């Protein structure tokens, strides 16, 4: 169940592509192995051992998913908030560029020679 997206990333940040969350198969395996009814005791013990391992595997997968989600970039805000931030940043950039332009070309020494 990998989400396949194409992306480039810097260190310490993950892309969704690198995220691996395969939880459902593990759950399925666990339940299947519990439901399997073995008649031999040796198979049963073996099965229960495998089961325990799978449960641990599930736990590990969940924790791993949590850690990886924390490393994803850009999800500190909801989509709307992020878009609003983007707009604000664009406005800020525009204003600053205008200010700079105004200061640079405010007084033309050549044309104001009197």
């Amino acid at each position: 169940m990998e989400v396949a997206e194409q992306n480039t990333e810097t260190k310490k940040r993950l892309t969704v592509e690198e995220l691996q969350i395969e939880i459902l198969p593990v759950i399925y395996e666990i339940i299947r192995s519990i439901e399997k009814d073995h008649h031999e005791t040796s198979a049963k013990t073996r099965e229960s051992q495998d089961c325990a391992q799978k449960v641990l595997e599930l736990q590990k997968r969940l924790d791993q998913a949590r850690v990886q989600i924390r490393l994803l970039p850009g999800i500190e805000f909801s989509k709307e908030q992020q878009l609003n931030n983007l707009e604000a940043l664009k406005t800020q950039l525009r204003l600053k560029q205008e200010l700079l332009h105004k200061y640079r070309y405010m007084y033309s020494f050549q044309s104001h020679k009197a």
Partner: protein
Amino acid sequence: MASQLSTKEKLLSLIDDIELISKEMIENAIAPKHLKLSCSDYAQRTQLLVAKDTELKETLKLASEQAKIDEKMDILKAEVDRQDQDINQLQKQLKEAEQILSTAIYQANQKLQSIHRANKRPVSSEELIKFAHRISASNAVCAPLTWQQGDPRRPYPTDIEMRLGFLGRLSDPINGHLLQQQNNISELHRSGHPGDIPASQPNQFAWHPSGEIHMSVGQGSVQVDTRNHKQETEDVEVMSTDSSSSSSSDSQ
């Protein structure tokens, strides 16, 4: 805005939900028969689990879109930082320029005031030059141009000159008439030093403060007027022409 859940929180909560549901289902699988869930409950739980998983996938798609937007924002932030730097630089330069200009204006003002003061009381350059000439004629300001090491001339009265002066000759009755004669002369200028000069230099030229040369002939000193006066006027004239050629003096 705070009421909106950030995507991160959403994802994490989805994972927690899946964990809970899966735990429930597993416990249900190992539970004894009388504690098992009913069929419909079990089916419901399964459906819920699948739904949560789908939701998780969709939210992850959203997260990837947000990551792209985040990249754009980083680029924009870098641009904004650059603009900030430019603005700061410009501010610094403007401040510097303002400071330099204000200093220049202040100094120009001072100059204008001093020009105004000078214009109120003009002095002729001829007078200034004459005074300068008189001050420097005794060679106290600068050695004569032909002065070399070993030249006995000094900018101050030497001991020989002092001895030949009024005080030095006070106790000398033989040269009393000379003293009187020299008295008259010394009222105008100091006397030179005849006779005491070594024989190697019979004609000793001595400078006097008024700028006249005294040549020692025998026991007396003869004032060499003509040459020096000419020289003096020459000097003054030369200096005048010099001054008139220079641009800073006022012509009167």
